[in-house]
């Protein structure tokens, strides 16, 4: 079943006061996301990720194009009951406590009294907000606000959640919790659409990703299908290796970097069988330390794409006038 579909979704903003020029924040986005999928929406800052999420939640209206969530318009009250949304760096009311905030939002979903309080307490436990839940939200740190934001996003047991940079502002522990939460949502049958600029988040979670650069969808598919992320070589770190032995590996290692005395980082081409190379190095007296695949990173990919876009249209994303 299709959970979310966009067709030729485009958003222009008028920029400038006296002579506003249309600035294309999102350009012709066509996406289709199946139910129960974890979809990572990746792109550098200013690529149009937040614009897309705001369009999907109808915080802004599209200039052209169409959005359908479970076959309905995003503004449909029925859709509102089934979605959850975590905005980027969420902010809540200073005067409320975390408990009161969830009770307020629960009320909007028709939860009342004891049932509402119980649900709020359960969610706050789930996202790791302990005794702080009785403090006013103005006293919360960025990471704690992010956790409260996650709790309110899943308050109504949504069928689809939109998470805008869910890992930002979180420490490593928090990031791990969010990953666990996303997988838990998926196991419950929920569709997850999240934006990020960190590849490792996507690798750990997503069945599919879409990459957006300069307002345009560059590619969408499973990460392994996206050629840019294929392994381009192997990095092997060995210690206690006699420098003279290195010469014997000239054909098999394309580069050797000395880290410290008798400790080297060796770079082997992609077609190498890394296990055999490691075994041979050990046989020659080397002590194996680590083995890592070398991939072109998402950052490399962004840099390439951004450079390509700039070369294509020097005027940037401002639309021609007239």
């Amino acid at each position, binding site marked *: 079943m299709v959970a979310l579909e966009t067709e030729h979704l485009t958003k222009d903003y008028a920029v400038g006061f006296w002579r506003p020029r249309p600035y294309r924040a999102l350009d012709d986005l066509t996406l289709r996301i199946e139910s129960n999928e974890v979809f990572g929406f990746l792109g550098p800052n200013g690529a149009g990720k937040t614009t897309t999420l*705001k369009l999907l939640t109808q915080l802004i209206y599209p200039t052209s194009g169409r959005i359908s969530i479970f076959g309905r318009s995003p503004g449909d*009250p029925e859709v509102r*009951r089934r979605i959850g949304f975590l905005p980027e760096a969420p902010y809540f009311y200073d*005067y409320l406590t975390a408990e009161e905030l969830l009770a307020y939002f629960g009320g909007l979903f028709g939860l009342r009294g004891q049932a509402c309080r119980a649900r709020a307490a359960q969610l706050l436990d789930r996202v790791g907000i302990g005794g702080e839940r009785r403090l006013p939200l103005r006293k919360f740190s960025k990471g704690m606000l992010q956790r409260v934001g996650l709790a309110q996003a899943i308050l109504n047991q949504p069928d689809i959640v939109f998470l805008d940079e869910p890992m930002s502002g979180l420490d490593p522990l928090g990031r791990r919790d969010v990953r666990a939460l996303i997988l838990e949502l998926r196991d419950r049958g929920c569709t997850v659409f999240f934006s990020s600029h960190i590849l490792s988040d996507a690798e750990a979670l997503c069945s599919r990703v879409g990459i957006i650069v300069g307002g345009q969808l560059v590619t969408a598919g499973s990460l392994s299908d996206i050629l840019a992320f294929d392994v381009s070589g192997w990095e092997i770190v060995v210690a206690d290796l006699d420098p003279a032995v290195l010469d014997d590996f000239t054909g098999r290692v394309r580069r050797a970097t000395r880290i410290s005395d008798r400790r080297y980082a060796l770079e082997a081409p992609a077609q190498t069988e890394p296990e055999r190379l490691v075994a041979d190095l050990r046989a020659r007296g080397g002590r194996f330390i680590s083995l890592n695949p070398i991939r072109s990173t998402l950052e490399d990919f962004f840099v390439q794409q951004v450079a390509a876009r700039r070369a294509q249209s020097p005027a940037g994303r401002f639309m021609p006038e007239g």
Partner: protein
Amino acid sequence: MARVIGLVAYHVFKESVRDKVLYNLVLFAILLIAASYLIGQMTAGQDVKIIKDLGLAASSVFGLFMAVFIGVGLVWKEVDRRSVYNLLVKPIRRHEFIIGKFLGLAGTLLVNLAVMAAALYVVLALMAWRQPALVKASVDAPVLDSGLLVAFFLLYVQLLVVTSVAICFSTFSSPMLSAAFTVGLYVVGHFNADLAHFEHVVDSPAAAWLAKALYYLLPNLAPFDVKMAVVHGQAVPALFVLFTAGYGVLYAAAMITLAALIFSRRDFK
């Protein structure tokens, strides 16, 4: 729908209570009591009138402050701090949000005006208690005059109009500008009647037409001020109160409708 609006309204009320606005009011009540004591010492025979006049004027000024300064921030603050992003993706329509905000502030104003009215009556009760029977018999209006309540009621409806204007501006403008516009309209509103007869002052039919259009467009706030009549013990006709209040409610409803229309089409960039 009513439940959602009620929830938003309740939280506006909760926010204002926790925003320490009410503490300012307590301060105001204490000031009023202290001032009335001093004035009672200084004036001969007119003390009750002065207290009533001062009490109503102070209530109207403080009420205006509240309506404008809470009103202009209500919607703008949510958009500026982006708390509205969490709220508007829930099953709530944008016009329900605006109506809820308005009703919440209307509730806050009602409680605050009630506190001010109570404070005024307490001071007046103290005066009445100390007043000799002969003096009581010779004044225009009884000390504890129920006419004061009529003045407070019309003041309240006037504040609803001001609140609706403030909220309307705050759907698209910053608080500073909204406050300036709202206070400007409040002042203009008190001299609005002059616009109706502008053709007697100018020759240009275009200017007269424009003045007439503005007369209907801008709020007419002068009729809401019945302070003078009440202080001097003159009766305020029930029909006048009814029509004035009806006009105020309709004007506020029109402004809130406009605010909801603007807010419903807005992009939250």
